[in-house]
């Protein structure tokens, strides 16, 4: 396996202009709007379950932000609300200052969902090109970008294979490639390494780090505490739809008087 290519080396993942503009915007505009601003978000499902109640969260532009919490804490509900995938009961969501419901804000977000949700009728190449298309990319740009992503994520040998015939690891790579296809400014990764073997997980970590270094804001949810500690500059712990703590990994350890993030997690959730 060739592994995932260096995003800043052989392949221009973000597009030179995209990376440069992201970096410049962060440097020149210190009071730039946060990548994600959630205010008073409430989500009540049709069965009456309240997943989030009056939820507030701000993710600074350019940050690598982790969301930790048990199943049912509201992480995926929050992500779904940001990405227009659920009907929000109440609250305000903004992406780089724009209401999340606007087309502009939606074009800035890339989502890799926890579950594999690939179009069974499309090949790897088509999956990427069509995703780029409905995110507004022109045909030639989408096709060129798809070729880049195919190389970056080592999908060349399966480029013309439909997704049901891919291995689990290949599908996970394709899911991530699709999320990055349209050069989003905010990348949301919902447990991207769930069920992934050690080797691929290391590759994904390395790639995500480089993506962040190039100026992309990352919002990561994960159940792997070492993953959050290794990758995230800031971590929010969520329980029952509320943020119970938020700080760097070191800050959380200090606040809870714990030696490890696992101890922090146990104490915060108890």
């Amino acid at each position, binding site marked *: 396996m060739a592994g995932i290519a260096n995003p800043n080396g052989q392949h221009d993942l973000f597009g030179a202009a995209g990376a440069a503009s992201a970096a410049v915007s962060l440097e020149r505009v210190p009071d730039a709007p946060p990548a994600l601003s959630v205010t008073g978000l409430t989500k009540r499902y049709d069965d009456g379950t309240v997943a989030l109640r009056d939820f507030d969260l701000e993710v600074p532009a350019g940050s690598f932000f982790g969301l930790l919490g048990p199943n049912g804490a509201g992480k995926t509900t929050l992500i779904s609300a940001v990405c227009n995938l*659920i009907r929000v009961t109440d609250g305000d969501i903004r992406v780089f200052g724009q209401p999340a419901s606007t087309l502009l804000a*939606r074009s800035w977000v890339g989502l890799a969902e926890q579950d594999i949700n690939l179009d069974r009728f499309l090949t790897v190449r088509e999956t990427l090109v069509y995703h780029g298309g*409905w995110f507004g990319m022109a045909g030639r740009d989408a096709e060129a970008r798809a070729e880049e992503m195919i190389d970056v994520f080592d999908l060349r040998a399966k480029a013309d294979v439909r997704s049901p015939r891919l291995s689990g690891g290949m599908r996970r790579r394709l899911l991530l490639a699709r999320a990055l296809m349209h050069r989003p400014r905010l990348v949301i990764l919902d447990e991207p390494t769930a069920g992934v073997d050690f080797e691929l997980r290391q590759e994904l970590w390395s790639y995500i780090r480089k993506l962040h270094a190039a100026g992309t804001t990352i919002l990561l949810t994960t159940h792997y505490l070492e993953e959050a500690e290794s990758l995230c500059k800031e971590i929010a712990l969520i329980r029952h739809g509320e943020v119970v703590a938020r700080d760097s990994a070191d800050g959380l350890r200090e606040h809870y008087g714990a030696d490890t993030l696992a101890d922090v997690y146990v104490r915060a959730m108890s």
Partner: protein
Amino acid sequence: MTGNAGLLWLMRREVLRVTKLWSQTVLAPVVSSILFILVFGLSLGGRLGSVGGVAYEAFIVPGLITMAMVQAAYNNNASTIFQARSDRYVNDVLSAPMHPWQLNLGYNVGGIVRAIAIGAALLALSAPLTGVPVERPFALAAAVALGLVLFSALGLVVGIFADQWDHTTFISNILILPLTFLGGVFYSVEMLPAPWEELSHFNPIFYLVQAVRFGFLGTSDVSVWLALGVTAALAVPTYAWAQWLFSSGRRLKA
């Protein structure tokens, strides 16, 4: 950012699905409809004579083409949206920067293109076989357009509400197919005794069949304006229903 580029790509994706599965989506319905024409029209037509002055084998062609097209439009769109919901790859489209009206239009296109491909193939095959004319092409175009909007949108609505595949096929097999058969595909309702002739006028598909038949043959059991009006009165709210589902997110978003 207008979403129009996304709309075009969504249309392309829906048409791609039809072309990739062409043997199922186009060839199979064409073959089955041609068999109807061969069996009922050419083999039995000689004994049945004519209906309203039109040879029986030509008389049944408009209804059979209508039946094939509306079933294709419905089945295509019910299955494409249900599959996308079931496998959750609809999320990739729902999160994209497109307006709800663009999603509705984009998803409708696949069924319409598939139905037109089937209709064109059937016309090309049946015209030399039966000699069926196209007397009123504009009326035919209007009838086909309204019928396809109606059944494409109905397919989306059912595919969005369905919890399992059976629900989509139930509507097709229990509602659309019987109503199409009873809508005068194989006979003129004027040939029916009371009260069946009167009851046929409560069948909405009867009016679509009549409108298409008028386009082909220049005659129908009811006024073409009534037939087009009833079909439009069904097509507009059904399309609006699909639009409301995309706008509100009901059944598409939790």
